[in-house]
């Protein structure tokens, strides 16, 4: 590649490499490290601050994961605290919270896969069929907006719309159904529907972008050829459009499955009330309660590590599965 060349590196067509010299695979003399460092000093200098960031805020915490196997006492530090092996993991797996956390986390993930994952695909396909360009662009502009709003805003909007006192939607439903007023925001029964509703509102529009990009890449000649062959709109959709976004759907499915255990800390935290904690508690928020609120750093780290490891297994597993099924996968 031409991009690999730097003046100082350009090797002149050397006389040594003439035919009579046998093609010995001479290994290049190892260049001393300091020579590289000196030659590329400016590049390494540019790299340094970022590298420090990754070491301090990404890799130091990974080292900090060792406290999951210790009884961490701040006073004694990481290395001084006593090793306790798998004690915290035992506590987690046999404790009273594990079943509930797992159930809540996985049920939310399941609801996300069933309701939230397909939504952008459907909307992207609908947008793709829209023939009015102006309308398509306006709809896109409007449905992308919620993606940029914070979860705090989303939670506040939910509260303003669903609160018992003056919530517009709450009052509207009350007017339709009658009976007792329901406190949607506080009640456990409504926690999961509201979470799904928020995710749909916030992420559906933005999620269409990646599918629309895939759809834009489809060669229009394919459609014209199909039309000449007498394929109607449905057939074109079924045989051209849908196959065109299948790889994208697979990649997105892999990414989603890697996050089955991540419930979106901010969203869940903001929607948790004293009345719905039984259904709201997931691994992410549990780590916060245990670690930050109660100060059991080691136990909380163990919970977080368990979650992280499951996440890695899931993402590699689903990637493997996608490849077995003949798709291209992510890596």
């Amino acid at each position, binding site marked *: 590649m*031409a991009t*690999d*060349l*730097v*003046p100082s*590196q350009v090797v002149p067509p050397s006389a040594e490499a003439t035919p009579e010299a046998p093609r010995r695979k001479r290994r290049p003399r190892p*260049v001393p490290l300091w020579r*590289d460092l000196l030659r*590329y000093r400016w*590049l390494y200098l*540019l*790299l340094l*601050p*970022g*590298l420090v*960031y*990754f070491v*301090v*805020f*990404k*890799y130091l915490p990974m080292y*900090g*994961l060792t406290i999951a196997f210790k009884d961490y006492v701040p006073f004694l530090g990481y290395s001084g605290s006593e090793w306790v092996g798998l004690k915290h993991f035992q506590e987690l797996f046999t404790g009273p919270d594990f079943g509930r956390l797992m159930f809540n986390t996985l049920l939310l993930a399941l609801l996300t896969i069933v309701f939230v994952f397909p939504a952008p695909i459907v*909307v992207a396909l*609908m*947008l793709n*069929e829209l023939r*009015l360009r102006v309308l398509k662009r306006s*709809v896109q*502009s*409007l*449905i992308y*907006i919620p993606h*940029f*709003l*914070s979860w*705090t*805003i989303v939670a*506040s*909007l939910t*509260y*303003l719309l669903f609160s018992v*006192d*003056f919530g517009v939607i709450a009052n509207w439903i009350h*007017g339709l159904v009658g009976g007792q007023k329901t406190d949607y925001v506080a009640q456990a029964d409504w926690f999961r529907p509201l979470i799904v509703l928020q995710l749909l*509102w916030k992420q559906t*529009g933005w999620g269409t*972008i990646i599918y629309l990009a895939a759809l834009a890449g489809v060669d229009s000649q394919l459609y014209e050829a199909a*039309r000449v062959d007498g394929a*109607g*709109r449905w057939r074109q959709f079924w045989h051209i459009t849908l196959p065109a976004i299948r790889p994208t759907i697979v990649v997105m499915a892999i990414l989603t499955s890697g996050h089955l255990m991540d419930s979106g*800390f901010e969203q869940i935290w903001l929607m948790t*009330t004293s009345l719905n904690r039984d259904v709201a508690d997931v691994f992410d928020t549990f*780590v916060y309660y245990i*670690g*930050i609120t109660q100060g059991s750093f080691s136990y*909380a*780290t163990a919970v*977080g590590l368990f979650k*992280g490891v499951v996440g890695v297994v899931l993402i590699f597993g689903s990637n493997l599965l996608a490849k077995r099924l003949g798709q291209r996968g992510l890596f």
Partner: protein
Amino acid sequence: MKQRVRYYDSAGSRVFDVLNVVLLTGLAIVTVLPLLYVLAGSFATESEISSRPFFLWPHRFVTDTYHYIFSTDTFVRALLTTIAVTAVGTVIQLALTLTMAYPLAKRFLPGRALMLNLVIFTLVFSGGMIPTYLVVRDLGLLDSYWALILPLAINPFYLIVVKSFFQELPEALEEAARIDGCNELNVFLRIVLPLSKPIIATFSLFYAVGIWNDYMSPLLYIDDSKKWTLQMIVRQLTAANADSANVLQQLETVTFPEQGLKFAVVVVATLPILFFYPFLQKHFAKGVLIGSVKE
């Protein structure tokens, strides 16, 4: 030119078209309606908010709520804090991301592959909340504004996108500069950065939105309520059991628009995002982000 192939629209196809237009228009309206309602509500009187079911234009247009929230120290301080942290944070994030992405874009650089893998690994696995919290604490950053910036200084995903962008730049220009005796630092500052204006604009907006919207960092790292950011205030005011008077530390028993101010703080926290939204959209619509996701 492209010849438009006329083909028969079956009745079903036309019904679908109409339905499609109606459904998508409906979707767009439903998406923005809550925002418009909150905007209207923030200019309405208390009685109108509680008595009128739904409105997009208040009967009586009042600005009491805004007068009130801007008269409280707590809110003004949080707003100014958030603006400052967002501004400083974005500059730092951009600087670190750009300077790191440039060397990583140089295929000839020894050690590049290793460092790139170190970055990519953090996308799959991380130390998690508690170990990161402990690092921040051990650095003495608790209750410091730096805790809202430094732990998020580089988004690995953005870094990889910027790196891919640098790789696409024509090498010939950099080459010419090197031959003219520029060192790598000058090539970066004088040649590469001016060519990168679109991507700098894009990611400064994305980083700024990220800090502005961040709720988790202040929740984790900021205890002192005097140092709360806007998102914390919004949360405190609109939580189901909010005690607005207490949050805003207004001890005088003046009557204040208790419901209306919730609408107003949501509007103030949303407005900057909506203001920058057209710029954001212009850039991501170009596919800056998507094009380089898959290397």
